[in-house]
């Protein structure tokens, strides 16, 4: 049995000292792995990265994260990433990590992702340079996720993004902003890899549960959505899943 805890959009700021640490006090007893799908800081300041690292230092289980749009706001995403990696957090941007947990190989691949919209109402790489750059960035980031997932020859395969890979977990947000909340291209990458679970954040007014066109469970774990300090997802038949997929 593998238990995966996840919470996104914790938005740690200089005013947050002590809070996240208290909220995560029991996670080491309830889960084997903690995943953080982005918006780890409020303003994207390097100093907030330091507060965040101090809050996470006491967590006894492996932590895997992607950054979110807030973490990029001041151009300090590199510093925030390095600060987290210095305390052992694995930060993924088009990368993967394989963890040995309870005798099973658990693979996690992640990207921040970007917007663009969903099938039937999405942007295309056409027109002004700015528009082409927007969509091209999403295509490139989705391809990096696909490549990172292809490397996961593991018993369990988990995709992590900040932006949403499907529209279903955005229900509750205004329709007009869906193109800024995610992209179907992320969902396509997740389906091509036959993932076991996809986790994302970003959409605070969205819905927790959804499923990709290919049948991959998707969970929006933005903290205002799950309304708990983290959610826990449990996999019972981990070794058998790999056999079925093979």
């Amino acid at each position, binding site marked *: 049995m593998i238990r995966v805890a996840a919470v996104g959009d914790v938005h740690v700021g200089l*005013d947050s000292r002590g*809070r996240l640490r208290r909220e995560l006090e029991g996670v080491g007893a*309830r889960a084997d792995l903690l995943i953080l799908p982005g918006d780890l800081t409020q*303003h994207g300041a390097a100093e907030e990265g330091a507060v965040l690292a101090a809050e996470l230092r006491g967590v006894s289980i492996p932590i895997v994260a992607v950054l979110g749009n807030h973490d990029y706001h001041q151009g300090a995403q590199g510093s925030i990433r390095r600060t987290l990696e210095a305390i052992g957090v694995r930060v993924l941007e088009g990368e993967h990590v394989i963890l040995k947990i309870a005798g099973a190989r658990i693979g996690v691949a992640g990207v921040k992702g970007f917007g663009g919209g969903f099938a039937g109402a999405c942007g295309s790489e056409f027109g002004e340079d700015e528009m082409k750059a927007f969509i091209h960035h999403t295509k490139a980031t989705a391809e990096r996720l696909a490549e990172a997932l292809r490397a996961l020859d593991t018993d369990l395969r988990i995709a992590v993004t900040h932006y949403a890979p499907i529209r279903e977990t955005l229900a509750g947000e205004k329709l007009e902003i869906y193109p800024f909340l995610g992209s179907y291209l992320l969902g396509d990458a997740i389906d091509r890899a036959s993932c076991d679970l996809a986790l994302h954040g970003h959409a605070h007014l969205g819905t927790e549960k959804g499923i990709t066109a290919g049948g991959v*469970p998707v969970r929006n774990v933005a903290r205002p959505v799950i309304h708990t300090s983290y959610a*826990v*997802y449990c*996999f019972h038949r981990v070794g058998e899943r790999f056999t079925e997929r093979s």
Partner: protein
Amino acid sequence: MHPPRPEVVAGALVARIREAVAEDPRTHAMDFSIRVVGPVVTIAGEVPSEARRRAIEDVTREHVPIGMHLKSELTIADYPEPDEVEVIE
């Protein structure tokens, strides 16, 4: 020329406040609601701390026109540890 309808004026004020609170370096906050009814601007939603609540209220107040007033229904969020675990089949 006809004056703009009240709901158009209210919508423009909501947009201005939302933009201000999203972009102001004191706040960078987006997930709260803003309603304008008559002379009252009401903001509502959950925020993680008293400091963030005050910051959102302060920035919003700076954009509330003279003759209108701000009503805050922002509450401090409490996020307990989960009671349940979801089994993924």
